[in-house]
C-alpha cells in the first residue's frame, strides 16, 4: 500500500512547576501523580479532543523504577482517567527522554500509525537520584570503551572545558547570570506561567500546599555571587552549581497530532515537526552532542543555521551551550538563543525537559510570525545529542 508521510503538529504543552529535589516543593509528591496532573490539564485545555482519539501515551523517565516504573505511560493514562482503550508506554533516552517521546510518537503519526498522541516526561530526582540502581557493565572500563569520567555528568562538563579552552569559567558564569536574568524577565512578563499547571503538594508537617511557580530560579544572581561557588567535579575546575542546572523534580506533556486530524478536530497547530536527528559522541564529552545532531539535521534539510530564527537549547551546563554556540559561530548572548532563559535557572528534571523546550518555542513562535524555523536541542548522557527542527505555523514571511 503506498503511503504518504503526514505533517505532524505540536498542539499544546503543559508542565508542572519545577521543584528543587531533596527538601523542595515535591519532597512528598509522587512522580506519577505529577504526570497525571499534566495529562488531565492537557485534556482540560483541549476539550475538543475526544480522549478516545488518543492513540498513544509516551512518557519518558530516566530511572524507571518505583513511581516512575511500571510502564509509566500506561499507568499514568489509567490514573488520569483516559479510556482503557488508550495505550501507553515508557521511554528512556536520559535527558532527552521527553524529546525522544515526541520524535518517536511524532514519527508514528507521520507514518500513519497514530492520529493523536500525548508525549512527555517526568523526573523526580529527589525520589530517584541520578544513577539510582545502575549497574554499568565492567567492560566499559576494562576495554576502555569509555573514560571513567563519562558516567558523571559534571565530569563530562569539565572535560568539555578542556576540549574548548576558549570557554572559560567566566564565560560560563556570565552565560548563567544571563539565563537567570532572562527567566526573571520572562516571569515578570508572564511568558512562563501559561504553560504551568498548579500541582497540589503535601507535606506531613506543613499539610497541603499548591505549587504554582518554578522553585529553582535565583533572580538577582551576579558574577560575584557565582565566583565563589565550589567546583565539585574537579579541584580548581570550571563547573559549579551556579553554571549548571540543578537537581530537580518535574513533569511535562504535549499533545501532537497529524495536521489534518488537528484541523478535523479543531485543535490548535502551534508548530510543525519538520525533522529530527540524533547523533552520538564520545561519552566523556557528552555535552557536545547537539553539535553533530544539529549538523546532521541541517545537512539533510539543506538549510543553514542562519535560517534558524529561534534556538531552544537545554542548559544542562553553560559550557555545553557555549560549545554549541562556538561551533556554529553564534554569539554567547545571541537573542535567538533561549530568549526566556533556560534550565540553569528553571531547572532540569532530566527526562521531562525536552517538552519544556518545545512549549517555550511554540509560544515564542506565536509572538514571532517573522520566524520560520526553530530548533529544540539537548545533550544526552552516554554521549549523545538530539535536535528537532520545527516550523512556525504562524510564519508570515512567505506571504
Amino acid at each position, binding site marked *: 500500500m503506498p503511503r504518504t508521510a503526514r505533517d505532524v503538529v505540536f498542539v499544546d504543552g503543559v508542565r508542572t512547576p519545577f521543584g528543587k529535589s531533596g527538601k523542595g516543593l515535591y519532597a512528598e509528591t509522587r512522580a506519577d501523580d505529577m504526570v497525571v496532573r499534566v495529562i488531565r490539564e492537557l485534556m482540560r485545555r483541549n476539550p475538543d479532543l475526544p480522549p478516545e482519539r488518543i492513540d498513544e501515551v509516551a512518557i519518558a523517565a530516566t530511572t524507571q523504577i518505583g513511581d516512575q516504573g511500571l510502564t509509566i505511560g500506561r499507568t499514568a493514562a489509567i490514573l488520569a482517567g483516559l479510556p482503557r482503550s488508550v495505550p501507553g508506554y515508557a521511554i528512556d533516552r536520559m535527558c532527552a527522554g521527553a524529546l525522544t517521546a515526541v520524535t518517536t510518537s511524532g514519527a508514528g503519526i507521520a507514518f500513519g500509525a497514530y492520529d493523536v498522541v500525548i508525549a512527555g516526561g517526568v523526573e523526580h530526582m529527589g525520589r530517584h537520584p541520578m544513577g539510582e540502581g545502575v549497574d554499568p557493565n565492567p567492560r566499559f572500563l576494562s576495554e576502555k570503551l569509555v573514560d571513567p569520567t563519562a558516567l558523571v555528568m559534571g565530569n563530562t562538563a569539565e572535560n568539555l572545558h578542556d576540549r574548548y579552552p576558549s570557554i572559560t569559567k567566566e564565560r560560563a558564569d556570565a552565560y548563567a547570570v544571563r539565563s537567570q536574568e532572562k527567566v526573571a524577565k520572562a516571569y515578570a512578563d508572564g511568558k512562563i506561567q501559561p504553560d504551568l499547571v498548579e500541582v497540589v503538594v503535601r507535606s506531613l508537617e*506543613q*499539610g497541603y*500546599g499548591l505549587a504554582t511557580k518554578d522553585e529553582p530560579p535565583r533572580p538577582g544572581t551576579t558574577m560575584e555571587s557565582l565566583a565563589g561557588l565550589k567546583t565539585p567535579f574537579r579541584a580548581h575546575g570550571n563547573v559549579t552549581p551556579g553554571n549548571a542546572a540543578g537537581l530537580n523534580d518535574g513533569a511535562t506533556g504535549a499533545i501532537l497530532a497529524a495536521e489534518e486530524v488537528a484541523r478535523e478536530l479543531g485543535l490548535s497547530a502551534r508548530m510543525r515537526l519538520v525533522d529530527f536527528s540524533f547523533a552520538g559522541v564520545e561519552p566523556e564529552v557528552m555535552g557536545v552532542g547537539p553539535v553533530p545532531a544539529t549538523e546532521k539535521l541541517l545537512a539533510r534539510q539543506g538549510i543553514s543555521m542562519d535560517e534558524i530564527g529561534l534556538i531552544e537549547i537545554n542548559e544542562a551546563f553553560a559550557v555545553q551551550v557555549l560549545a554549541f554556540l562556538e561551533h556554529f559561530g553564534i554569539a554567547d548572548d545571541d537573542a535567538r538563543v533561549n530568549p526566556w532563559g533556560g534550565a540553569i535557572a528553571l531547572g532540569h528534571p532530566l527526562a521531562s525537559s525536552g517538552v519544556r523546550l518545545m512549549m517555550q518555542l511554540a509560544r515564542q513562535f506565536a509572538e514571532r510570525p517573522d520566524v520560520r524555523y526553530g530548533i529544540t536541542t539537548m545533550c544526552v548522557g552516554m554521549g549523545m545529542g538530539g535536535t528537532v527542527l520545527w516550523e512556525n505555523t504562524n510564519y508570515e514571511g512567505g506571504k
Partner: protein
Amino acid sequence: MSTAIDEARELFKDEVVTKAISRDIELPYGAGTAVLITLDNGHDHTRPNTFGPGGLLSLDAAIEAARGRKDIVALAVTGKPFIFAVGADLSGVPALQNRDQALAIGKLGHDVFRKLGELDVPTFALVNGAAMGGGVEVALHCTYRTISSGVPALALPETFLGLVPGWGGTYLLPNLIGAEKALKVIIENPLAQNKMLKGGQAFELGIADAMFEPADFVEESLRWVAKVVKGDVTVERPEVDKGEAWDNAVNMARFVVEGKLHGAAPAPARAVELVAEARTRTRDEAFAAEDEALADLIMSPELKAGLYAFDLVQKRAKRPAGAPDKSLARKVTKVGVVGAGLMAGQLALLFARRLDVPVVMTDLDQDRLDKGVAYVHGEVDKLLKKGRVNQDKANHLKALVTGSLTKDAFADADFVIEAVFERMEVKQQVFAEVEAVVSPEAILATNTSSLSITEMASKLEHPERVVGFHFFNPVAVLPLLEIVRGEKTDEVALATAFATAKKLKKTAVLCKDAPAFVVNRLLTLFMGEVLGAVSEGTEPETADRAVAPLGLPMSPLMLLQLVGPAVALHVSETLHEAFPERFAVSPELAEVVKAGKTAIFAPDFSIDPEVKKLLVGGDEPSAESEILDRALRALAKEIRIMLDEGVVAEAADIDLCLITGAGWPFHTGGITPYLDKVGVSEAVNGKPFHEGDPKAV
C-alpha cells in the same frame, strides 16, 4: 466551663490529636491568598482523623490565626489522603464522669466549628475523603463545600451509635438541603444498618456545591474556590421549603423511628425533634439545644451500649476469643458441599466467591443436583446483571461451582461442609461416606443448627477433623458464623475453620458443643416465653407486642414466620430434650405445624385468622409488662448458665452473636448491657454480667 474542658482533656489523654495545619496558598487566576488547613493526625488512612478536645483546640488555633489577617481572601479546610475526618473521638467518652464534662465537649465543638461560618472571608470545605459525624459538621459550618466523586463514605452515623449529630448537624443540614433529605442522612441511613453515602450521592443531595474527580481533587477545588472568590462562579442552591414539607418530613421520621424502636433508644427521636425545631430556631438556640441533647445522650446507658456494640463488631469480631493460632490453619484449595438444597446453594456461592476455589456440590438425585447448581449459576447471573461482577468473573464463578452424583469428586477437597437434612443418622452417614474418599487431613464441617458435633463425629476414623460451622439465614446478610468445637476437634481443624471464616468475611464466634449453640438457644428461649404466654391465654398480638420496648428488628412471631414454624418447633424440641425444665415445646406451635401452616401473618400483617384459631391457650392471660419481664428474666438466667457451662468465653460473645446473628440492636448492646441496666441480671443471678461499663475487648 473551662475547668470542665480541662477535665475532659485529661480524660482523653490518649487522644491521637488531629492537627489543623495551616499553609498559605496562592489561589489560581490571581484570586489572592488563601489559608488552607489540612486536618491530619499524622497516621495513614487506617487511623482516620477524629476530633477530641486536643483536635478541636488545634482547629480553633488555626482558625484564630487566620481570623486576624487582612491579607487573605478565603479559608479552606481539607483532610489527609483518603480521609477528611470521621467525627468525634469517642475513645474518651466512656470515661466522662459527669454531665458537665459532656456538656463541655459538646459546647467546645460548637464554639470551634461555628467560627468557620462566622469569619469575614468565605470558608470552603474540600471534602477529599471519608467524612462522618463531626467531619461532616466541619464541612457544614463552612460557607461552601466541594466533594470528591471518590469519597467512599459520608454519613452522620450518630443516631446509629446513640448520639445526635450535635455539633451543628441537626441545624445546618436541614437548613441547607431541607428537612426531608436531612432526615434521610440523620435518621434513615443510620437506622438502615448505618448506610453511608458515596461522594456522588452526597453531591446529589446538595450537601456539596461542586464535585470533582479524585485524581486532582484539591487542585480543581482550589480553582473553583478562586472562581467563587472572584465572583466568576455563583453558587445557587435550591430554596429550602420551610413550610408544610418540613413538618411532613419530621412527622414521617417520627413515624419511622417509633415503628422501628418503640421508644427503645432515645437518640433518633431526639435528633428528629432537633430537626423539627431547626426550622425556626436561631443558630444560638439550636446549638444550645444540641449541647443539651449531647450532654444527656453521652451520659445515657444506650450510648454506652452502642459504643460497646460498635467495639464488638469492629474489634472483638476481628480477634475471636479462643481461636487457635492462625499459623496452624491448613490451606483450603477445594471445597465440597454435601447437599444441593437452598442452604447448600448459598454456601456454594459464598465459598466460590470468597475463597476463589472449586466448589463441588453432591446430591444423590440428579434432578435436585441440577437444580442446586442451577440455583448458584442463577445467583451469579443476578450478580452480573447488577454489575457486581463482570462477564469474565461470572464465567469464572460458574466454572468453579459444579455438581457430582458421587462423593468421589471430593477426593482432593480439603474442606467439606454438609448441609443435609437435620437428622443425626443422616449426617453421620454422610460424613462416613465423605471420609471414605477424602484425605485424612480434610476438614469436615457441619452446618447443623442444633445437633451435637461430638456425636456426629463419634463414628469416624478421624473425629478430630470435625467442626461445627453454623451459618445464619440469609447467609449473604447475617455476618455470624458459630464455630463449634466438638469434644475431639483438634486445633488444626479449628484454626482452619477460623481462617476460612475470615476469608468468607464472617464474624466467627467459638462455641462449645452445646445444644443449639448460642443464637438459636436464646431466640428459642425468648420466643418460648412469648409462646408460653399464649399457651396460658394471652392474646397472640398482646404477647407479640410485649417485647417491643426492646426495639428488636422484628417481633417474635415475625421471627417465627421467617425461621419457619416447623424449623422452630424442631429446635425447641431439641432444646426441650436437653433442658426440659427451661425449654417447653409449645403445643399451639405444634398445632400450627401440624396444620401445615408456613406463615403466621396474613399479607396485611395481621395474624392469619386460621393460625390465630390455633394460637388459643388457657385462661390466664398476662399483661405485656409481665411477659417482657419473664422473657428478660429467662434470658438473664439462661445466659448465666451458658457462661457457667462455658458455651462461649464471655458475655461479650453472647452479645456479638445476637447482634451479628439475629440483628439485635446496638442500643441494647446485644442484650447483656440492657439486662444489667434494667436490673434483671442482678435480680435473677445476684450479679450483673458486667462490672462497671461493659467492655467489648
